[in-house]
């Protein structure tokens, strides 16, 4: 239940940010709403990856909240006519975003042991390493977004590169032991 709550909380927070966006004109307001929901999802994902280095128990709710916010972000962009299904394949920025969302949703599914058991899915933990791939795709998605602030892009890329570096160093040390 707590997992479902985190998922819905992420989506609800994103929805609140989208609904309260007002930039003076419909075009700018939509852009602001999409930007806010996207950044919420990205920040929650980074928080989840950061927390997983120190306190694994908090990782799951943050990751699920990130997935919820990302799903709302994607749904909002489709509902507002920003995105077409074809563009999810043809447009690099949307392709990255859609792939990252697919990873997050897959991780969401495997967050419930009952789902894992009913699917008879063994060996699912490697899937969770794909969260770093999702993070890299988010950087690509943001880099190609014409409205994302560049300082935000730099901070996001820096944070994810640092987390990945820490993870790799830890892995190498563990292997050496």
């Amino acid at each position: 239940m707590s997992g479902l709550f985190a998922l819905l909380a992420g989506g609800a927070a994103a929805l609140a940010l989208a609904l309260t966006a007002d930039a003076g004109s419909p075009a700018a307001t939509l852009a602001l709403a999409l930007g806010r929901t996207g950044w919420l999802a990205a920040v929650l994902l980074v928080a989840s990856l950061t927390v997983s280095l120190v306190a694994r128990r908090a990782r799951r709710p943050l990751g699920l909240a990130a997935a919820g916010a990302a799903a709302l972000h994607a749904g909002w962009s489709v509902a507002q006519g920003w995105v077409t299904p074809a563009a999810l394949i043809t447009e690099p920025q949307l392709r990255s975003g859609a792939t990252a969302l697919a990873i997050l949703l897959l991780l969401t599914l495997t967050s419930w042991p009952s789902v894992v058991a009913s699917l008879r899915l063994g060996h699912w933990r490697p899937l969770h390493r794909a969260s770093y791939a999702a993070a890299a795709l988010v950087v690509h998605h943001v880099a190609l977004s014409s409205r994302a602030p560049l300082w935000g892009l730099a901070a996001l890329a820096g944070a994810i590169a640092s987390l990945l570096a820490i993870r790799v160093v830890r892995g190498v040390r563990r292997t050496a032991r």
Partner: protein
Amino acid sequence: MQASPAQPGRRARHAQAGAVVLAGLLWAFFPIPTFSALIWAYLVVVLALGLARGRGHRWADLALPWPWALGLGLVLSLPAAVYLARTGRRLWANDQLEGLRPVLQDRLRLTRDPQLHPPVLAADRPQVFWIRAAGARAVSVELDGAGFDASRIADGVFRWVWRPGDSVPTSEEVVLRVDGEPSTRALTVVPPRARPTALAADPEGGALAVSEETDELLLIGSVPGVVERITVGDGPLRAARVGDAVVVAHRGEPALWWVEREGPPRRIAVGTGQRDLAVDGDTVWVARTGTAGPGLLALDPGGRRWWPLEAEPERVLARDGQVVVASRVARGLFRVAPEPAPRLALGRPATALAWRGAELVAAVSDLRPEDDAGPNHQVAEQLVRVDVARWRVRGADATAGAGVGQLAAMQGDLLIAFTGSGTLQLAEGRRVASPIPAPDGLVAVAGGRYVVTSAATGQVAWLDREGRALATVALGGEEPPEIELLRAGERAFTEATRSGTSCASCHPGADSDHALHDIGHGVPRPTLSVRGVAGTAPFLRGASYPDLSGLDHFAATILGGYDRALPNRAAALSAYVLSLPLAENPRRLPADVEDTLVPGYRAFQRAGCPACHPPPAFTDLAQIPAQVLFPEQPPGVLLDTPSLLSVSVTAPYLFDGRAPTLASVFEAHDPGERHGAFHRLEPSAQADLLRFLEAL
């Protein structure tokens, strides 16, 4: 398979490495190379292995003795390695990583505060720069050690008017002093280069031309190699002989110059905004534009007369009491005398005009009297014969070359300089290759010779009766490499592809032809001006080109490519386009314009325009779905936010040209108030906003 005696953690890592290898193998069979596809392949492999493992298939552990694992891993990695090597460049391009740098560079430049725009200074003409300096009370600008005050338009928004002085700036940097604090910003200075234009036969036997950037009148002798260069006012546009004198119209000077053999030139005030001149007997006709509206001024011994025109004039031709004006924005002709007549629609601007016998001949890239869009990148260049007395198109003939640069008549024959194909049509239909590239001027001079000029290369050449080259003069002499690059770029811009189309076909003078073109998808789009695009990547209405080199690729493939190899063509073309100043806006420079800018910017802010069109570039370089502004549009069509600088001279407006005027953008084409809050402004503020946009 036999499991290796590894520890659980190590075994998991081995399985992970195996999954990566298998994902790479799967990825190597994806038809379109993208990084996302690699990740999808990884997900598929991991899920498949997980499901197999969950169903008890031990092979899904990928547990092999290490020599086997290593060997098999290397072999299975080979297809992915080959795929990567073969598609590396495409992979980079497909994920838009190739074009990311120029786009991010321009965004980063505009993010910096303070900042000015445009980032290019064409040193031959006055220019307006907008400066954003958040929270600043005063901004001054230093260039080459000289200081200039910028005018305050609103909080943090300033405007600096640069006017050419005696020397050309050499610095590539400008210092913005914000409340005394200096910040250095890059500014590309484009020095003036000699470009002979407006070639005309001189009744005294030679030819007349001007060089607008270097402020020169060129008296070209009929004797090969003789060019007399006389400095005149700012931005000479055309010269014509009146008796013993030569009269010169100027772009940047409020006077005509009367240049005589002896003594200093006389100046006759006619006001700014001159566009062209023609002489018919004693009468000098001056086409003008400006805040008072477009019109035609006639000066003769009896005084002055003024004819208002419906559209901005570009050329005026006068002969035997007949006066015709060509307008690029109206894509047609207007008859002023003997009787004024309404617009004669051509559908595309006349790029060259000449009288021949009783008719006027106009070169048009694709005659479309109904003003329709036409097929994708259609260029069917024609010489349109106009019966001036009856004011109708008599007929049209195909041309024998590409890219008509100039027409001139000679005893019933048409002399044609084909800029695009680099060929000349001389008397009696004789066709020869031009001795100089990109010829855009051709006239007959005394002695049965011809004079050819090329603005792109800055050359003048003389030919004999048979078309054999006699002499060539390069007006620029030995030039530095950066000028040579710009000349190569201008030449590439005008050079026709095998389809007959060049960049200049739809962008005459590197500007817009103000026509609609179907550039794919069956949707007519108005042509964009390519002037003033530096610092505004990505380009085109859909932001489909992150840098300009892609346009050369388009010409080299879709348009059939070029007959002639030009080294560094893409770089030269890109450098040339990025060096162009903004399209000239006659409402931008008058001294009293700043009175309208302050209330205008206030209305601009109140209407919410800066949300997408923020200063200093008046674009956020971002894209927006067309459906957001125009609900009837299909989803997924992205529109690049255009800069509003020079917007008043880029009609028609909006992505499909549906708005003929700036006012109609809001009044007729924004019923849902999606394009800013114009409708919520009171009428006086609406008028202020429109005046502001016109003065940008």
